[in-house]
């Protein structure tokens, strides 16, 4: 009864909770929340246990992954096998997801207290948690994909939870379809991988698709465009990650997804599900990073560059990275950094408190991709973990603000909340500083610092480093803007628009909401310790390398220089933000401070670079046009062809009829008529008069006699 044998309990617990909740009557609120939270506590305990086991095992056998595989069904001569695994990456994610999940479940009890569909909400949440935890332990690309789809499905259900709101229903649909575009690429990648390698297991005693034997085969099979199968499959899989993690150009769904209840935004669209794409890249990292080792006609061997590179990054930074960087990783890096920069820019000009955070999430996910692409699993995943905590914190803080302000989401109508909501303000400020990357005391600083380190030492180009710095600058700036709008200055109530709402003073949220906030705030500060350059515990744990405490590392000029850069941009961003927004007008309708400085840029950003509009004009219209074309073809072309065939048949039938009527029938009639006439004529002979018959008999006898005489004579 080892832990690995029973690992499947971790996702199954919330699944059972979801199943039971699904059949509970709507009124059993206590039961549904209790079940969901209880199952998450169970999952958390299991995850902690698994974490301990994985840590022990990693010490004893570094680089070995524990797996359990089983057969699902037969395809061809082989069985489709699924399985689960336990390695440091999984262990870390399990703990994060179940811990953050648990806090958000508790918080939801307060947030959703007045909702009529409370039970259904917890059913969906538990289902989500089950799928997400299943995704983490999957040892097969197929099982991962199955959970991946379920995660997407629950995300759809939860975004559209208030489906009576047309915007929520539309957002849910948009999210599902947009991510589905990426998912199909992912599915094709799986199909391709299966037909190349014959397995979709990650690890299978040397025969898994992430192990060297199969990777070598994948690299050596090159298609007509000169791209190896490994690269093609990696790119297709990455496209799936792009969809789920809201990377450019499939990021459009994530901000709209904020139509869902705020705990959902915190859990799914900040901390866990959107990180699944990043996790996918990390999980398939050997595939992503696989490059054939160079020439000399040596048998193809594999180097997984950045995996080991990550832990020794401080030795190699500054010089060109050793070894080649795979195409897939270049794509990952560039996609990440462009997304980070773009989304940070858009966040600057948004006014909805949750949308700002949503764009910030997109941007931070870009940072994670950048970290994965340049620094390897440890670097990217460290930012994922720290981000999960402080972003969940920010979202729940935003939820608390929205709750306290009676469902107002527009930051222009808030203000001065630091007095009426002190706990929320304090925790939100911690989250904001972690996100902005305020030096030394906040986890965000250290995880971002690791990314900058890696990007700085990245072989192919130095650009990502500078673009990343720019994105960090913008991050500090927009977060300062948001905090100024929401918490500082004077209150800018009343509620916009209708005026039906009574002017109610904002109030602090109940303890069931603020306690999780405080716990997350503590994590947002403390987690940074785990990944400093002096003691990179996290990177070494996930990367499977040895760990030393080396204070000198922290003082090396290189480290200091990069930390200096990073601190500088943060201070600059916060400073400019404070300068512009500290004393904003108390009129909610007044134009934005930035808008007064540069209206053109502001409007470009406010409209999110018009990506939605571009899609509407191209993809959506093209699609609709095509669909209409198909429908047209359906009614006119095919139906027309059939109609034509039908008319031709009818025409032919007419010809046949004419033929029948005037040729066949005519002759037939004539024949029949002739026969009839002939019969009439013949019947006249049979007139019943004996004399007439006798006369003919007489004639006959004479004729016979004559014939006989004639015969005898001869």
């Amino acid at each position, binding site marked *: 009864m080892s832990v690995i044998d029973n690992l499947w309990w971790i996702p199954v617990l919330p699944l059972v909770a979801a199943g039971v909740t699904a059949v509970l009557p709507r009124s059993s609120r206590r039961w549904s929340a209790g079940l969901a939270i209880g199952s998450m506590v169970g999952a958390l305990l299991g995850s902690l246990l698994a974490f301990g086991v994985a840590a022990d095992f990693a010490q004893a056998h570094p680089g070995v992954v524990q797996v359990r595989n089983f057969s*699902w*069904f*037969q*395809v*061809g001569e082989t069985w489709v096998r699924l399985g689960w695994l336990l390695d440091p990456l999984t262990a870390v994610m399990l703990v994060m997801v179940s811990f953050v999940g648990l806090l958000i479940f508790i918080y939801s009890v307060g947030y959703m207290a007045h909702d009529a569909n409370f039970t259904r909400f917890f059913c969906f949440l538990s289902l989500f948690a089950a799928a997400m935890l299943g995704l983490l332990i999957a040892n097969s690309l*197929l099982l991962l*994909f*199955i959970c991946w*789809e*379920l995660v997407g*499905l629950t995300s759809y259900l939860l975004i*559209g939870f208030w*489906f*009576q*709101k*047309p915007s929520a*229903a539309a957002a849910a*649909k948009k999210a*599902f*379809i947009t991510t*589905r*575009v990426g998912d*199909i*690429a992912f*599915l*094709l990648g799986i*199909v*391709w991988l*299966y*037909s190349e390698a014959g397995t979709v297991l990650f690890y299978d005693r040397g025969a898994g698709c992430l192990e060297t034997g199969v990777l070598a085969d994948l690299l050596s099979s090159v298609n007509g465009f000169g791209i190896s199968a490994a690269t093609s499959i990696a790119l297709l899989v990455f496209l799936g990650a792009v969809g789920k993690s809201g990377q450019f150009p499939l990021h459009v769904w994530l901000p709209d997804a904020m139509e869902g209840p705020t705990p959902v935004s915190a859990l799914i669209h900040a901390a866990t599900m959107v990180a699944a794409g990043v996790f996918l890249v990390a999980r398939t990292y050997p595939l992503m990073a696989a490059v054939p080792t160079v020439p000399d006609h040596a048998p193809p061997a594999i180097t997984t560059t950045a995996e080991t590179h990550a832990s020794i990054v401080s030795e190699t930074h500054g010089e060109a990275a050793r070894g080649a960087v795979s195409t897939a990783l270049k794509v990952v890096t560039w996609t990440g950094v462009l997304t980070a920069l773009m989304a940070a820019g858009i966040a600057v000009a948004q006014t909805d408190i949750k949308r700002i955070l949503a764009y910030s999430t997109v941007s931070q996910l870009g940072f994670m991709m950048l970290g994965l692409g340049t620094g390897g699993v440890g670097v990217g995943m460290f930012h994922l973990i720290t981000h999960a905590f402080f972003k969940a914190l920010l979202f729940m803080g935003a939820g608390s603000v929205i709750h306290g302000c009676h469902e107002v989401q527009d930051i222009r109508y808030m203000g001065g909340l630091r007095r009426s909501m002190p706990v929320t303000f304090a925790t939100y400020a911690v989250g904001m500083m972690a996100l902005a990357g305020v030096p030394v005391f906040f986890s965000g600083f250290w995880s971002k610092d690791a990314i900058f380190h890696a990007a700085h030492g990245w072989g192919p180009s130095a650009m990502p480093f500078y673009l990343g710095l720019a994105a960090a600058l913008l991050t500090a700036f927009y977060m300062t803007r948001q905090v100024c709008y929401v918490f500082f200055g004077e209150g800018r109530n009343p509620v916009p628009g209708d005026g039906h709402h009574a002017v109610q003073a904002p109030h602090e949220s109940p303890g069931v909401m603020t306690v999780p906030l405080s716990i997350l705030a503590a994590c947002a500060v403390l987690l940074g310790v785990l990944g400093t350059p002096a003691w990179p515990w996290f990177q070494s744990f996930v990367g499977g390398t040895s760990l030393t405490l080396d204070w000198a590392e922290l003082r090396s000029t290189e480290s200091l220089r990069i930390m200096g850069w990073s601190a500088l941009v943060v201070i600059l961003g916060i400073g400019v933000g404070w300068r512009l927004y500290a004393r904003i007008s108390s009129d909610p309708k007044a134009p934005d401070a930035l808008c007064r400085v540069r209206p053109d840029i502001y409007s470009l950003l406010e409209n999110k670079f018009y990506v939605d509009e571009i899609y509407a004009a191209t993809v959506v219209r093209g*699609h*609709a046009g*095509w*669909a*209409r074309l*198909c*429908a047209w*073809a*359906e009614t006119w*072309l*095919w*139906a027309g*062809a*059939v109609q034509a065939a039908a008319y031709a048949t009818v025409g032919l039938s007419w010809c046949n009829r004419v033929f029948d009527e005037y040729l066949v029938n005519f002759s037939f009639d004539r024949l029949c008529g002739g026969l009839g006439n002939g019969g009439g004529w013949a019947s006249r002979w049979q007139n019943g008069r004996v004399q007439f018959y006798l006369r003919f008999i007489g004639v006959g006898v004479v004729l016979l006699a004559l014939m006989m005489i004639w015969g005898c004579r001869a």
Partner: protein
Amino acid sequence: MAAWSIYISFIGALVLAFLPRSRVACARWIALLTAVAGLAFAFTAAFPAGAGNFHELARHDWVPGIGATYLLGVDGISLTLILLTGLAAICGVLFSWNVRERVPEFFALYSALIGSVYGVFLSFDLLLFFVFYELAIVPKYFLIAIYGSTRREYGAMKLALYSFVGSAMVLVGLLAAYALSGGQTFDLLRLAQHPFPREFQMWAFPLVFVGFAILAGLWPFHTWAPTGHVAAPTAASMLLAGVIMKLGAYGCLRVALTLFPRGLEPWGFQVLAFGSWQDVFGFLGAMGIVSGAMVALVQQDFKFVIGYSSVSHMGFVLLGLVSLSTVGLRGAVLQMFSHGVIAGLLFGVVGRMVYDRAHTRDFALLSGLRLGQSLPFAAIIFCLAGFASMGMPGFSGFVAELQVLTGAWHAFPWLVMLSGLGLVIGVAYTLRAMQKAFFSDASGVDAGNGHAVSLDPEPVTWPERIGALILLLASLAVGLYPRILMDWIERGLATPVFDALRLGGLT
């Protein structure tokens, strides 16, 4: 014993035909009993050791002069499909519980249709096969023409004509094969061993394949399907999509592919990048997937959406069949089952739960009715069936389509990518239909006369609930544990009937 599923259905049909018209309840129960007994008899084939291998059920001389025998048999593929037929038959009866007019005749025709379908799936003599195949058209026509809705005479006639055109093509091919093999036998097992000349197979294959595939909704010969589905009464559209379309696909697999496997070989020249019938039919299959989905996306009639989605899903079957890979063939057979169950369920929800209560299928009107609130059960079932239909893992569609795509990847990677597009659109039209029909917030105003619509529908009845749950559970069971069918399908494809196909390069 499995042969009794044919006989019991026809016996039921006879009894029902002579039942007085007033005995409505009695007719329903007889029909339900017949359907259950049919499934039970079909199930007996699943129990002997080695179920899935070929078992002979009956062999008698029929027309000795021409070598026709009454030969019934069952293998894994037949077994899968007769189980599907049994399930669909039961659920069809349950969803027809509210038929009010000429009830005994309705169920008599219905049972006769089911009996012929069992007959097709169990015949291993080509002439017998063809007789049952033709026999199925007759009750189908009357079911639609008498009990149907929108443009029923047109739909029924179109369906019958398309079917007969297909049959004619098949008959020509079959007689040619019979004559060429020496005119001794119609026994499929023996004909499949006969080495027909390549030139003959080259024209006989497309003839017979298309002849059957018309009934399977092969693009662009599919237009009978949506109109037929829409015109048919609920139970008939469930059978039409669930089982009748499978007759065509089954014929393609059982007759066209086994008798004329060399017809798939390359022509030796290229026309518009098509180098063989395999390419042509693969392309048509993929076109069906994408085009069907596209058309479904812009329909205003709820039932048309499901009708076109059937065309789209049957495209996967055809793509799998011509992929010439074991994986693809298995996927195709599994997809037959999966689509039968899911499409049956969707038609049940739309035809029975929604249309019979709201008396409209127009999205513009439905969206004002807030059916999500007044019919929560229907809404939930449609959501689940919709997720199954869009290939959500956990339901049967995912496993089946995944295998088809995997199997087809080697032969046509580009078509697989094209089909991927179809999957995305599949999500779009399902969500669109779901939202417009159940979760729309449009103001409840009747477009026709301008006054507000208020619908207080009768709640979903128990027969409907049971029928929906049976189909849903079947899809889930196969999706979670595909082995319950895959083992049989696997053995069915390993029988000697497919030897020629295997020699012909099945991978």
